[in-house]
Every structure is written in C-alpha cells, then in structure tokens.
C-alpha cells in the first residue's frame, strides 16, 4: 500500500508537471492523461473502485481525446506551440502559486486530528452510490442534466460560429 501510494503519487506529480510545463501541446495532453491515470490508481487505493473507473472513462477517454481534437484544430497537427508556448509573468505566477501552496498546507501542519485519523473499513459499493444518487440527491442529478444541456447548446453555438453570421445580421 505504501509503495503503491508513492508510485502513484510520483506519477501523478510527474504527469501534472509535464502537462503544465511542456511546450509541445500534444505532449502536455499526454502528461495530463498520465496524471488522470495515476489519480485513478489513487482512487483504487482509497477503495473507490467505481470512481476510478469513471475517472478513466470520462477523463482519459473523453476529456483527453477532446483536448487532442482541439489542439489539432487550432495548432495544426503537430501541436508544436513554440510561438505561444512561452511563459508569461512567470515569476509572479510562481510566487503566487507557492504562496497559495503554503496557505493550503496550513491545516495539514496545524490540525492535529488530521494525523490521528485512520482509514475506516468501508468501501464504496456502486449499489449504495446509486441509491444515494436517486434518493437524497435526485434533484442535484436533475440539475446536472440541465447543466449538460447548457454545455451542449453553448458549446455547439460557440464552436460552430456560422460563417453566414454577418449576412444573418444584415437580414434583420
């Protein structure tokens, strides 16, 4: 368990760093996929098998491919991004991020009970999750359906951006 944690953790960190630091966008997305995969491994370690599967399906499967498509649409097929790949305001950005990190770490350092807690025996059964989803959280599920509708409509209109837009406006 310990070894597995450190392996997955370092892979996740490596993937994340690659994803935000590499100039070639396609490689960055592969770093991101590595990160998603390692995170799924960590979910497994935490006994959340179903979420690990969802993570793989949604992130590695859908999100990764979507990003690759977007890169190929906007950067030509290689995804090499030398022109726009540099960093901006690097110093201040780093400083702010490190400040946030110290800030985020505060509770880990100060809250004693975080260190005392031990894992409980429960595991995440898909049946129970499904029941919870239908019982108290049915409303949230419905709102999520609306959210997906909104994303669908919005993404289509914004990405499509019909070329006859100009004419359409003249017609009015």
């Amino acid at each position, binding site marked *: 368990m310990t070894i597995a944690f450190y392996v997955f953790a370092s892979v996740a960190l490596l993937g994340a760093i690659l994803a935000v630091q590499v100039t070639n966008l396609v490689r960055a997305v592969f770093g991101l996929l590595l990160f998603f995969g390692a995170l799924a491994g960590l979910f497994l370690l935490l006994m959340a098998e179903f979420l690990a599967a969802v993570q793989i399906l949604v992130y590695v499967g859908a999100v990764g491919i979507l990003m690759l498509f977007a890169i190929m649409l906007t950067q030509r097929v290689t995804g090499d991004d030398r022109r726009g790949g540099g960093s901006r305001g690097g110093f201040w950005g780093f400083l702010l991020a490190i400040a946030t990190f110290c800030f985020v770490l505060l509770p880990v350092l100060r809250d004693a009970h975080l260190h005392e807690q031990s894992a409980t025996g429960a595991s995440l059964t898909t049946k129970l999750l499904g029941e919870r989803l239908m019982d*108290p959280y049915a409303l949230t599920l419905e*709102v999520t359906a609306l*959210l997906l509708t909104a994303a669908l409509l919005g993404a289509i209109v914004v990405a499509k951006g019909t070329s006859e837009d100009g004419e359409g406006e003249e*017609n009015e």
Partner: protein
Amino acid sequence: MDYLTLLEATLPDLIVVVALFAALGVDYGLCQGKSPHERGRIAGEVSSIGLLLALCCLAFQWMQGSVFEIAEGQLNLDATGLAAKAIVYGLTLAVIRFATRHCPTTHASEYHALILLSALGMGFLATTENLLLAFVALELVSLSLYALVAFKTSSPQSAEAGLKYFAFGGVASAFFVFGVSYLYGATGSLDIGTWSDWSDRSTLFALGLVFVLVGLGFKVAVVPFHLWAPDVYQSAPTPVAAWVASGSKVASVFFLVKLIAALPPGPETATMIFAPLATAAIFSMLIGNLGALRQSNLKRLLAYASIANGGYLLIGLLAGSPDGYAASIFYVVVYALANVGAFGVIGLLSDRMKGDGRLEDFSGSWRRHPGLSFAFLLFLLSSAGIPPLAGFVGKYYLFYSAFDQVEMSYVLGELLSGRNGWLVFLVCLALVMSVISLYYYVLALKAFLVSEDESPHLDDDEGISPGIKLCVFALALLVLILGVYPGPFMAFLQAAF
C-alpha cells in the same frame, strides 16, 4: 424520498424547463426559413410565457404558505426562498424581453434557451443550502454565461471576452471545489445547515471557507477577482451583460449571505473571515470607483461601477447582523433592478447600430427617446444613491447596519480599534466613494440628457415593442417604489434571519 414533494417544490422550475425546450422545439420544427429576428421574437414569446407561468406558480405557492425542504438542505423554499426565486425569474423576464429585439447570431432559440438555463441555475443557487447542489447550480450558471458572453460569433471581442470569463471562472470554480473539499473534510457534511451544531473550529474549516469565498467573489466581481468584468460587460451582447450584472450577482449574494449566516457562532469564525472580506471591500470600492472615472465607454463604466457596488454590499455581510444580511440582499436586488434597466436601455438604443457604446454615441438620446432617457436617468441616479430612489435607501440600510454594530464609545482610540475601526473606516470610505461616483454617473447622464447634437449611432424607435417599453417602465417604477416605500420589503427580508 418523496418524489411528489420534489415535483411540487420544483414545479416553477419544471415549467421553465418545459418552456425552454418548447422554445427550441418551435424554432427547430416550425420556424425554419423565417428571418432570425422573427425566430428570436417567437422564442422570446415562448420563454416569456413560460416565465410568467412560473411566476404565477410561485405566487400561488407563496399564497398557500408552502414550505418545501428537500433532503440535506438541497432546497429550502420558505417565503424568502420563493421570493428569491421570484426575483430571479422576474429579472429573467426583463432580460428575455430585451433580448427579443436583437439576436446577436442566427441561433435565436439557443440564445433564449441558454438565458433560461442560467436562470434555472440561479434559482437553485439562491435557494440551496447544500454545497453540492450549490456547486452544480453555480456551474450551470457559469457555463451558460460563458457561452452567452461569446454569443456574438461574428465579433472577435465577444469570443475573447468569453474566453477571459471562462479562464477566470474556471479557476474560481476550481477554488470553490477545493474549498468545499476542505469544508467537507472538517465537518463531514455538505449541508451548511449542520454547521451551527458543530463546534470544532479548525484551520481546515477556515481555509475551506476562504477558498469558497474566492469562488463566490469571482461571481460578484469583487477585487481581486474583478478583472474579467469590464471586458465581459463591454463585449457581451448587451442583454447578456445585463444578465451577468444582475441575475448572477443576486443569486450569488443570496447564497453568500446564507453561507455567512450559517457560520458556527462565536468570535473565532467572525474574525477569521473578517479581515479578508474587509480588505476586498475596501479595494473593490477604490478600484471600482476610481476605475470608472476614466472610462469613455458606457458599458465599461457600468462594469467598474458594479465592482464598486460589490464592495458596498460586502459591508452588510461584515456587519454580521441580521439587519446587515437583509441590507445586503436589499441592496443587491435594488442594484440588479437598476442595472437590468440601464443595460436594457443601452441595448435598445445602440445594439443594432455600429457604435460600440462610447459615451458620445448616446448624445441627444432625450430628443429621440424621451421616455427611455428618463428611465435611464432614474436607474443611474438610483445607482448613484440619490434620494428618494431605491439605491439611496439600500445604501442607507447598509451603512446603518454597519454603524449599528459599532460599539459606541467616547474614547476615540476604542472607537477606532479592531472591528469597530474597520467598520467605521469602511462606512466613511463608502460615503466618500459614493460622492465620487456621482461624478461619473453625471458624466454618463450628460451625454444622454444635455447634449444638443444627435449622435449618428443612435437607433430609432422601430422594433421597440410596447412590451419592451412596459418592461423598462416597470423596472423604473420598482426602483422608485422601493425608494419611497422600502419598509415592507425590508421587513420581509429581516424576518428571514
């Protein structure tokens, strides 16, 4: 869970959902071949009917005295909750009316459908006490608004503003989720209603709360999360700008107030968020008002003014009393009414023309549109806080609630130390800033009302239906009524806390 209760509680929302699909369906099925303008008008009519029915349904529930509570604080629809929803849907109705006049693309029905979808999200955000539903609702609002801001697909600026809005909003929602994860770690629950019987105050909780406030601060456009606001207000289709400035702000403030009112009692919780919030309020007032002074574009000017207003309404939250919370909500509602009206008038006068909303584009409006210009005067004077309009009363309640919390002392040192000092300073700054804001509001009004020559970018009366005019005048009337006769509404809000 009882699904029938759920159905009953969400009936107004279901009507809106049906209306939005009806608008899409009618457009796709029956309106092919019609002009985009005609299609936009039909989609707008369908949406308006849906919203009106939803409002009737809300009124009916309100008269029956219904109180709905869905498990784990997901919905808390008491009288205030129903009122919050009614306010959101009422504002939506105004925005939809303004949107029927001019559709920025050929996708007319999607335009209205997305406005309705974001309205649904705002309705849920304003009435929920559950962090999970709040997150999903917040994202529903955000995703619809990102797309709406970029809806002028022929305009590069619109796409650019959309991407900027998305970049800031995405980071804000990541902060929100991360904050919620800490809150969940500290309390083991997603229902903020359970906070009050939970006594352990850890750093985990404080930090989670700060991160959640960052996420909401972005929505309210409080400094330092305001950078998107001017670009979005300037480049989005004008009704959408009105919508970003009003609906999403009202809903976020409702949730924000709930969040702060739900904090476990005790001095620790008050102090841990007091200083960050107070700093944000101070800088919002400074940057918003001083930034507005040097704008030549009317929409950008209103954007900076909205940042400043975000600062004012934090004062009510900082006061930390039921009166303060009620004052914040009163203020944001009044502000939203005036802003929807102001943006509506701007849109009616300039959306179909080539001008990009500079102040001089509106010169001489009073000749061609005396009624609309007069309404605009009311909206701007209300925002500036001129009696007897609602904005003045809102500010009065805010500042009064803050002063009410100052422990009176004749020793100047005691009066100005610690929390007292912050509150005194905030109110004084807000008063000075209100005076400064008068300058840029008058500058905007000068173009509308004083200038003799008519700008070539001014639209004519054609296509402004009586419905749209009725909307503008109803908003102006509300601003006036809430100014002259604010008592009942304020008492109603105060009863909620």
